[in-house]
């Protein structure tokens, strides 16, 4: 059993976050994150994730997740690794992204893999809530709506609703999803990597547009500084603390909608606590693909994801976009 000092030490190196920590403890962890340590980001790949028939191999997704988490935590056994990430006895949310419909949404196989390991780590089925904006988005991920509290719950904010009172930070004033504000002690962020028509890319931080009532209000200026401001809302900053990013499939242009002619399969997961470092890593992955197929960089296309830079500035302090301060592990 780790004592508190060991815990913080580990957290500072980017290995652990627990939902039971106080705000004070979290602030301390975040400070240590920025000041004393590199932010760890793991990119785990499996070129054979899709079989010869093009279908996703669910067992390989589970194995890929295990490899990513093991690398991140330093724990070889998946169950032990997950115990270092999530608190037991609290409600854990899995914020997926099903906006792109069946073609480009968080993969069901990944959601199921995470749920499997959470339960093995001691989280009860009824303490897991898989959610997004609405039933249609969840169905886009291949999920079936379930509100039975004895099983893994799957429902959207169209069922649970939004807070009446808005909260604000910087340029944003939003009404939060009650699933975030009231139900979840901790949220695992499961975005899917996509090019984005206005923001440049959408991944970890941009996925938070799905936890508010009117995301359409936040698209001006390439979603900058709105994405960064939104992630500074306390409930988002403090509860949404670990990204298990789905880069199994992606669209490198024309997003965020599904454009099969621009679909590609990185066959990867990008995970980490530092949402800025995760997004920076994901952005570079998109840029490499765009270069490979010979289309302009996002900057040349007028869609540089500036919000990533904003999120790293002193006013937001959400993480780092400095490659020198990102400990990138590719496995």
């Amino acid at each position, binding site marked *: 059993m780790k004592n508190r000092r060991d815990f913080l030490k580990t957290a500072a190196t980017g290995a652990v976050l627990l939902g039971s920590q106080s705000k004070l403890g979290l602030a301390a962890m975040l400070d240590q994150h920025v000041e004393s340590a590199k932010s760890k980001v793991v990119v785990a790949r499996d070129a054979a994730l899709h079989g010869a028939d093009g279908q996703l191999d669910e067992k390989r997704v589970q194995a890929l997740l295990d490899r990513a988490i093991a690398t991140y935590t330093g724990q070889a056994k998946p169950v032990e690794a997950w115990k270092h990430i999530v608190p037991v006895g609290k409600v854990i949310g899995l914020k997926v992204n099903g906006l792109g419909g069946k073609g480009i949404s968080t993969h069901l196989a990944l959601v199921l893999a995470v749920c499997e390991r959470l339960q093995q780590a001691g989280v009860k089925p009824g303490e897991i809530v898989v959610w997004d904006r609405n039933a249609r988005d969840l169905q886009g991920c291949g999920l079936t709506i379930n509100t039975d509290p004895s099983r893994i719950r799957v429902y959207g904010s169209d069922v649970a609703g939004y807070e009446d009172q808005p909260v604000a930070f910087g340029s944003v004033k939003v009404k939060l999803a009650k699933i975030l504000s009231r139900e979840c002690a901790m949220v695992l962020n499961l975005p899917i990597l996509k090019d984005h028509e206005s*923001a440049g890319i959408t991944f970890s931080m941009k996925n938070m547009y799905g936890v508010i009532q009117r995301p359409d209000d936040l698209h001006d200026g390439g979603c900058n500084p709105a994405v960064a401001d939104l992630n500074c809302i306390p409930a988002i900053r403090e509860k949404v603390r670990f990204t298990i990013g789905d880069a199994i499939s992606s669209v490198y242009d024309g997003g*965020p909608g599904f454009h099969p*002619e621009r679909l590609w399969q990185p066959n990867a997961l990008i995970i980490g606590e530092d949402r800025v470092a995760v997004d920076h890593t994901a952005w570079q992955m998109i840029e490499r693909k765009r270069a490979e197929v010979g289309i302009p960089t996002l900057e040349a296309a007028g869609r540089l994801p500036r919000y990533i830079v904003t999120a790293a500035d002193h006013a937001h302090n959400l993480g780092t976009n400095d490659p020198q301060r990102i400990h990138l592990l590719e496995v």
Partner: protein
Amino acid sequence: MNLVLTIAAFVVFAALAASGCKKSHSDPFPVSGAIAGWQKTSDTRVFAAKDLWQYIDGDAEQYISAGVITTSTSDYKYQGKLEAVVDVYTMNDAAGARKILEAGQSSDAKPVQLGDAGIAYAQSVIFRKGAKLVRIVAYESTPDAAQALLALARGVEAKL
């Protein structure tokens, strides 16, 4: 009795006149079986421009700036396997439809004879006809997807 019918007819006529006798819009979505192998698997959903974000948040801006008025969408399935979605965007004018079609075109697009202009990829067909822009996308790639999508597109075109 005749007087009652006459009054009723007058009331109906007056109501139509007051409404401006708006031309009814035909439904562009082929019913199940109208195109060989294709089943319409969902109700048609319609989004006004101000609500388009609910359907394609993030993508909505480009359509709004091109003058979208309404967007209608429906799901289809081909031979019980291949799932696809048909989106029909009604723009302010033909220029708006052209703008979206040309902006979304990549170098591997194959021109197809549909409407005023159209392009096809292995899993999608996009065309414009007047102020309408139609986008049909299959969720997976199958050997017969391209031909099946083209047949569905022609069915939609015929109803525009």
